[in-house]
């Protein structure tokens, strides 16, 4: 993403809407400027700000006049008055930033659509997590912090050493050059993204071990980690196995995503349409 300096009027609206705080008003050129290395190409500025198409010279003159009169210029906070944002043509490896940060684009760079996979959201159809199994989503970077792949690498290596299985249809897994060791591509390690999710599945007996491993590794990381733990309920709809383990580890379980089991697979003979998965 870039900001066209000929259009920008330095109103400052965009400096607040950037989730990575990567936009600032450059005091020398007096224009909004993007710190390119901090920008994760999430397009929140381009897609989220409403756009006007005002004449920049006119707007600057108005702003100068108001400033001289000490009148506060207070535009709507979610508007770019001159439509100054212009998307860049992204190339590898920078394109990975957008794939992991802009929720509206499929993972063109990785070949996997969506930031993660369907995990337990479609478990009633996919049967991905069975009774006696636990699916972990280990998410890095959110909210509002971001993460570089070299930090994700640390966690992946530790998980691989523990012998866990990475979910195959996951964008992070698809960027591994060696899945058994959890090794990510060298050329993406410095790329920063809004968030990325590592997905693994283990037998329920290993739940505590994995949580403790994550605790140990996350201390070494300079970002936020959000853990999600998915499991199957019993035929009565109760879950009496994993919750007690998590509570024993000190977690107070407040929120969950509950799959209510209404999904149904269609017969395999019918070809499936292509679709985009954007996680919810």
């Amino acid at each position, binding site marked *: 993403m870039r900001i066209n300096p000929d259009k920008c009027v330095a109103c400052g609206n965009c400096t607040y809407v950037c989730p990575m705080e990567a936009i600032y008003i450059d005091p020398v050129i007096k224009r909004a400027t993007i710190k390119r290395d901090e920008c994760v190409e999430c397009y929140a500025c381009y897609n*989220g700000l409403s756009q006007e198409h005002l004449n920049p010279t006119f707007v600057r003159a108005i702003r100068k006049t108001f400033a001289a009169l000490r009148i506060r210029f207070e535009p*709507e906070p979610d508007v770019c008055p001159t439509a100054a944002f212009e998307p860049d043509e992204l190339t590898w490896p920078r394109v990975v930033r957008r794939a992991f940060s802009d929720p509206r684009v499929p993972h063109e760079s990785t070949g996997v659509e969506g930031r993660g996979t369907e995990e337990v959201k479609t478990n009633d159809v996919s049967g991905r997590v069975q009774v006696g199994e636990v699916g972990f989503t280990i998410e890095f970077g959110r909210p509002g912090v971001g993460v570089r792949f070299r930090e994700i690498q640390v966690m992946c290596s530790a998980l691989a050493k523990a012998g866990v299985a990475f979910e195959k249809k996951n964008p992070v897994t698809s960027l591994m050059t060696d899945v058994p060791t959890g090794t990510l591509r060298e050329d993406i390690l410095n790329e920063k993204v809004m968030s990325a999710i590592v997905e693994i599945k283990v037998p329920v007996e290993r739940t505590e071990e994995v949580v403790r491993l994550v605790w140990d590794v996350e201390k070494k990381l300079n970002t936020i980690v959000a853990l999600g733990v*998915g499991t199957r309920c019993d035929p009565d709809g109760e879950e009496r196995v994993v919750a007690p383990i998590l509570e024993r580890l000190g*977690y107070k379980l407040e929120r969950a995503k509950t799959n209510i089991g209404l999904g149904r697979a*269609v017969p395999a003979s019918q070809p499936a349409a292509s679709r985009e998965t954007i996680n919810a």
Partner: protein
Amino acid sequence: MTNTLHRFGNAESFSDDYVVFAIASKGKNDKDALPKLRRFLQIAAEYKPVNLGEGRHGGALRPSRDMSPVSHWKRDMTPDFQAVIDGLDHPTTCAAVFDNRVAAEDFVKRIKEEDLGLSVNISTSIDGAEQCCHHACIPRHSVGYSLGFEGKTEKLPNTQVMMLSTMCGHGMVSHQLARKMIDWVKEGRRTPDQAVTYMSRFCSCGVFNPARAKRILQESIDGK
């Protein structure tokens, strides 16, 4: 991203936050999913949601690509649910957000009766989802627990900012915008309703809960 799972707050703070979403599974039941997803949204609209959304085009309040300067003084803050339904052109995750348990329960019961064959999930407090299932006589199939945020938590802002910004799990509502809106509401520069619409427009899949956001902003004025 586990978009609705990691909302910040305790169970009590989700008493006005029920996200019900439908999703097809790739290669398993996504054939002909589009009309079913549209039907899901149409039914949801009957139960007075506070937001509707889908992953490709967003929620019921969207930014404008060609805004008129005069619209600053008369911006439409009414959610357009029909636009979400009409705009759905691709099988993706569709979500309905409710601000009360009764509406969510009734909607879930109706969706069960409709038998669309899509996977349906409820994202809220654990008790809230259990009550919805109980009301519809549905045993839960699977559950995905949120264990919250760990690691370098000193990088995170205060509770109210977090409660607002994490309502867009894709991270499109920045901490700074949430903080600015709290400040503007406290200073009387904008009403809570106005502040909520600004934030809603950044949510790219329509799961932002404007009712909960308004309550949080109101509580910030009241010093809670």
